């Protein structure tokens, strides 16, 4: 094997450990072994900065980095965002008993693990080995960086012949590449041949993936269940199993499978997000809440950060928020407001997101029984919506629901009218629209306008004419408003102008109401009053 110091001397190296002694020890050890350029980082954030600004050949990270992200997350992010090349070697240092030390996704596995505590002898031996292997795999990894998959396959076949001892490692890359090229039959044959010799966990998962892609769901499920019995910590099997349940339209099992996976590996953001979405769809808000809470926390400083996490978290908290002011409700609402605020701050440039966050904020106030706040925030959302170019059907629907929740039926009706004209609603949006419509039947609106009418009459009788007019305006805004309400509204305005002074605007408003009412028949109980009001209106017009 090649000499380690020759291999290390020209390499740009990053060492990541949360403990200061371990960091300097690692740097020292690497220097003794021949390294010249070693950067050190103390946590995920610092490591990400270094990785973003440098082109590393070798990264050595402790798995457990204290409170922040762990080594696996750093690796996944760096590979996911292509900030490190396939030719870069990533070595993970692990303490043996870390119960939540699990393998990441196939493509995000480190090149090697070294178990702590280790002596310099062990480090020398392992680094020499892995760097030698990595060098032999260099052409393949370079092709990987170019995403030149055909070349990868050709090079794999050559290397298996030239270096039989690397057969398994190369076959693993080959299988992965065949999957990416959608050559599932070929990949399946490869995995089967490997499995005949030895049941290697990645080959089992590879086989299950092929069967899944070939839509042989029961067979895939069988392989996965077998793999999980043998390797209970191989969490990616749960992910695929969950997808099979989804294909079978068994959402509950899909959710439970992901719960098992998150119990083994709680720090994987994408899985927590998927679990949250499934649980939310299943209306299992307790599970959704904890999954989204975890997603928000884990993704906060990572490339997986998404506004959806914050918004879904706030939404999944609503089930415990009520006007009762109990502790659950207090905590729930304060967490929801916090999530909404964070989303608004982080994504302030994006009006769509701010709108969505504002909608949830209003709903939270409604659930707390704070009607005035809910309404004020709903109006903010309404304002935001006017700034959105081509708002989606979903946005309009959520606006309608919030307006209805804050008793602004007239405005809701306007948007519903726009929604009716849309031709681009998805099936679920159309269902939602029908549901919303059914909830606000004409009867409900009439009851509501009658209620406002009663309040307005009370104001009128106390001589609070302006308040009465405002309330009648609200009631008559509904096209369903009855004749009595319209006559009352006319009376309030006419009386106001008689007692104070007439105005063009109000006269026009009265005209519009009279037109809307049409001619009342003589036998109508409101006929006399209507006639008198018409005359007063005519007189007022002459005065002005």
């Amino acid at each position, binding site marked *: *094997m090649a000499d380690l110091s020759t291999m290390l001397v020209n390499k740009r190296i990053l060492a990541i450990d949360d*403990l200061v*002694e*371990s960091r300097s*020890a*690692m740097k*020292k*050890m690497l220097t*003794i072994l021949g390294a010249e350029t070693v950067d050190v980082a103390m946590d995920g954030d610092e490591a990400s900065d270094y990785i973003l600004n440098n082109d590393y050949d070798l990264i050595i990270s402790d798995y*457990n980095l204290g409170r922040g992200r762990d080594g696996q997350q750093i690796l996944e992010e760096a590979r996911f965002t292509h900030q490190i090349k396939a030719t870069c070697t990533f070595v993970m240092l692990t*303490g*043996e*008993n*870390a*119960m939540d030390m699990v393998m990441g996704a196939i493509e995000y596995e480190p090149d090697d*693990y070294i*178990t*702590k*505590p*280790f*002596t*310099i*002898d*062990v480090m020398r*031996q*392992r680094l020499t*080995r892995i760097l030698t292997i990595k060098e032999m795999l260099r052409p393949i990894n370079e092709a990987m960086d170019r995403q030149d998959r055909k070349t990868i396959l050709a090079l794999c076949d050559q290397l298996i012949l030239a270096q039989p*001892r690397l057969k*398994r*490692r190369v076959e693993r890359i080959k299988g992965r590449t065949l999957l990416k090229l959608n050559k599932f039959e070929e990949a399946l044959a490869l995995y089967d041949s490997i499995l005949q*010799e*030895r*049941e*290697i966990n990645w080959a089992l998962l590879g086989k299950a993936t092929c069967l899944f892609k070939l839509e042989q769901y029961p067979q895939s499920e069988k392989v996965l269940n077998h793999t999980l019995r*043998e*390797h*209970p*910590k191989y969490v990616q099997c749960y992910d695929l199993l969950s997808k099979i349940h989804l294909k079978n339209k068994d959402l509950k099992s899909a959710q439970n499978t992901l719960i098992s996976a998150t119990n083994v590996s709680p720090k994987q953001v994408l899985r927590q997000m998927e679990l949250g979405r499934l649980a939310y769809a299943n209306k299992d808000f307790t599970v959704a809440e904890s999954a989204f809470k975890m997603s928000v926390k884990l993704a906060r400083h990572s490339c997986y950060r998404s506004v959806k996490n914050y918004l879904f978290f706030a939404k999944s908290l609503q089930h415990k928020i009520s006007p009762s002011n109990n502790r659950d409700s207090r905590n729930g609402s304060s967490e929801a407001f916090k999530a909404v605020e964070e989303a608004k701050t982080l994504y302030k440039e994006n009006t769509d997101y701010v709108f969505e966050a504002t909608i949830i904020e209003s709903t939270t106030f409604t659930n707390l029984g704070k009607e005035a706040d809910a309404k004020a925030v709903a109006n903010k959302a309404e304002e935001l919506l006017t700034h959105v170019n081509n708002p989606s059907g979903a946005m309009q629907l959520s606006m309608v629901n919030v307006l209805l929740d804050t008793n602004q039926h007239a405005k809701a009706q306007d948007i519903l009218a726009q929604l009716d004209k849309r031709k681009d609603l998805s099936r679920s949006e159309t269902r939602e629209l029908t549901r919303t419509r059914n909830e606000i039947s004409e009867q409900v609106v009439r009851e509501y306008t009658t209620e406002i009418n009663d309040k307005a009459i009370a104001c009128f009788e106390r001589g609070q004419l302006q308040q009465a007019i405002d309330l009648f305006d609200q009631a008559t805004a509904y096209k369903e408003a009855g004749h009595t309400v319209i006559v009352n509204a006319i009376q309030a305005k006419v009386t106001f102008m008689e007692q104070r002074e007439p105005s063009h605007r109000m006269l026009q408003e009265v005209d519009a109401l009279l037109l809307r009412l049409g001619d009342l028949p003589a036998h109508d109980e409101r006929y006399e009053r209507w006639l008198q009001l018409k005359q007063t209106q005519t007189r007022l017009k002459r005065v002005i």
Partner: protein
Amino acid sequence: MAFDFETLLSAELHDIKNQMQALLSVQEDLADELVGHERYQESLDKIQQHSQVLNYKLIEMLSILKIQHQSFEPSEDEHWLIDTLNPIIHEFYNLHAMTFELDFDEEFNAFYDEQLLEIALHNVFVNANQAGAQVFKIKVEEFADGGWLIRIEDDGPGFNEEQLEKGAFSLHGTKSGLGLYLIEQAIKAHKRNDKMGSIRIQNNPKQGACVQLIFP
């Protein structure tokens, strides 16, 4: 809420491991700085010897905790035997001046749980050393079905009749019982297609003991 001793224990162990790692590293520094200062060398050697034993004992303890855990699964991965073996034989050479003759392809690699094999090898060497062996010969044999074995021969007195008769199991009751128990558990944990690992002990016709660690 019930007190979670396991989490506590695991946190403590994590700490101890980090401390051990730091200690090993400070030693390396010291050794570096003391090059040429002969009068300190003897003490330094002793410190290094003790800390290596301590380090090994820690790994052994962790493995015992690991094996006794109900959900224990060996993590069999592909390793190069020479990488596992070299640090161990260096240590025994430094501590006890034991010598090793390696008679196998340096590129030999296989699937095994590296930590478990380390435990097994360590115990084999400690036991042999206690019996008085100094020179070791290590061979590897590969089988057509993918299985393989490591054969370790030494120049010690060999096993007595009773031990040979009862096989490895007989050794559980001896002073070094824990070690042999661990070797057996470590090797038996390796499984493949309904087969499991085993150990076999015998004496060489000329002299010394021969231990075979057989992997499926």
